[in-house]
């Protein structure tokens, strides 16, 4: 099981935008953490830094005992990536190819391309891919084109691809933001149960407070690149979360309102 250690992590983009300001975070093995925050709060930057698609510009970041900033060889980077299963908002399947082929691509971290090519892949690997599809309830469309599916179905296939990767930790970046509420809940149920079965650490970035309270064990609220809230779900107040989505001006107004209430 993977854990995450961050101390004073900063990310400044070349244009000067300070996306993460000295973040200190520890996520233990097997935890189910939800990261909340409004647009521009730094949650996507955090996701990209944790998955090694962006370099941090300061501080220390360690995931599963590995420090992405220290990678020198391609091999180190690909081994690191292979261990972290990603789920994206827009699924990111390869168009023009079949569902089965997309799932087989999940094995690219441990097999060369010619071995995961659907027509010539070994029966063992094809069977593993079919099992992954069965796990997400999509085995009946294995031969269909990836473009023929609905949003929810595409996300299931993307999850099957991730299962194929045999990850040690799952990170999801707004996995249900493009789905209707029913499909969204189904996807969250699926992700949480996969993490429970395999005892995986699960970090998801979400937009919806209700979903966060329902599926998270711990909620981290980001605001302008800083941690504003970090609490276990049982101890959290809905009003605290609402503050996350307020602009600084609104926050000040709310504060003044409070002063009036107290008769100051």
């Amino acid at each position, binding site marked *: 099981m993977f854990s995450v250690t961050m101390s004073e992590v900063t990310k400044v983009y070349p244009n000067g935008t300070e996306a993460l300001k000295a973040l200190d975070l520890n996520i233990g093995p097997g935890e189910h953490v939800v990261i909340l925050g409004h647009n521009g709060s730094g949650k996507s930057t955090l996701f990209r830094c944790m*998955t090694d*698609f962006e370099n941090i510009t300061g501080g220390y970041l360690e995931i599963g005992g590995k420090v992405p900033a220290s990678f020198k060889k*391609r091999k180190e980077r*690909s*081994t*690191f*990536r*292979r*261990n*972290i299963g*990603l789920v*994206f908002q*827009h699924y*990111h*399947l*390869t*168009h*023009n*190819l079949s569902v089965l082929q997309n799932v087989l*691509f*999940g*094995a*690219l*971290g*441990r097999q*060369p*391309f010619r071995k*995961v*090519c659907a027509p010539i892949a070994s029966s063992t690997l094809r069977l593993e891919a079919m099992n992954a599809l069965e796990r997400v309830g999509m085995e009946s469309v294995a031969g269909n084109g990836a473009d023929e599916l609905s949003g929810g179905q595409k996300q299931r296939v*993307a999850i099957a*691809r991730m299962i*194929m*990767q045999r990850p040690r930790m799952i990170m999801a970046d707004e996995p249900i933001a493009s789905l209707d509420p029913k499909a969204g809940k189904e996807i969250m149920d699926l992700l949480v149960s996969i993490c429970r079965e395999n005892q995986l650490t699960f970090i998801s970035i979400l937009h919806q407070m209700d979903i966060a309270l329902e599926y998270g064990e711990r909620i981290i609220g980001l605001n302008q690149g800083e941690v504003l809230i970090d609490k276990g779900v049982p101890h959290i107040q809905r009003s605290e979360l609402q503050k996350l989505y307020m602009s600084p001006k609104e926050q000040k107004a709310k504060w003044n309102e409070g002063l009036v209430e107290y008769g100051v």
Partner: protein
Amino acid sequence: MPKRFKLPSPATIIITIGGLILFILGLGSMEISADRFFSGIVNMFHFIIGAFPPDLERFQTALVAMYETFQIALVGTVFGVFLSLPIALLASRNTTPHPVIGYVAKGFISLLRTVPDLIWALIFVISVGLGPFPGMLTIMMDTIGFCGRFFSERIEEMEKGPIEAVQSTGSNQTGVIFGSILPLGVPSFVGTSLFAVEKAIRGAVVLGLVGAGGIGVELSVAMTMRQFDEALMMILLILVVVIIVEQCSTYIRKKFIANA
């Protein structure tokens, strides 16, 4: 209130005057005269009178030569397309192994584009001799210049998501190229390649004029021998074949891209 007229900048004035001078000098060199214009119309009339009705006597020879032109275009394009893919991958910003290699590959593609195909044909006729082979090589060079550029542009403008998704599985670069970049580009690659075939057919006709095989040779001979009726038959044949190829290509493109 702004002035009614604003004087353009000195640079604009100089460029405009310079351009005008070049144009007037050029016009002077064209030896345009009403006399030649008139006799030209008369000669054109001779051609038209001589060309009708088109002479079908050597139709079979022309057909064989046209088929050869088609073959030159097809084989040259296929080779060109297959060579364009690796060159485009080397040239594109997001797939090149090293920026320097990227610049070299881009430079190579633009070199192929800048040299006109007739010059390639002349070079190849000198180096490999007359016939369809130098024609095919010329079309191949032309196609690499054309497809190399468009393939590489398509690869550079690709959405990052699906590529990152494959990278995130821990795949090596080969897996990323075959698992996301090439499949994502296929509809566009097919479209570009079909345009390349159309372009190649028109190009291959002209190549015959410098001895690089196909119907161009026959047409050139017929014209110099003033056998205008035979020439017209060939021109019509070229027209028909070009139109057929264009129609087929449009049909395939529509069908393929509609399914993509």
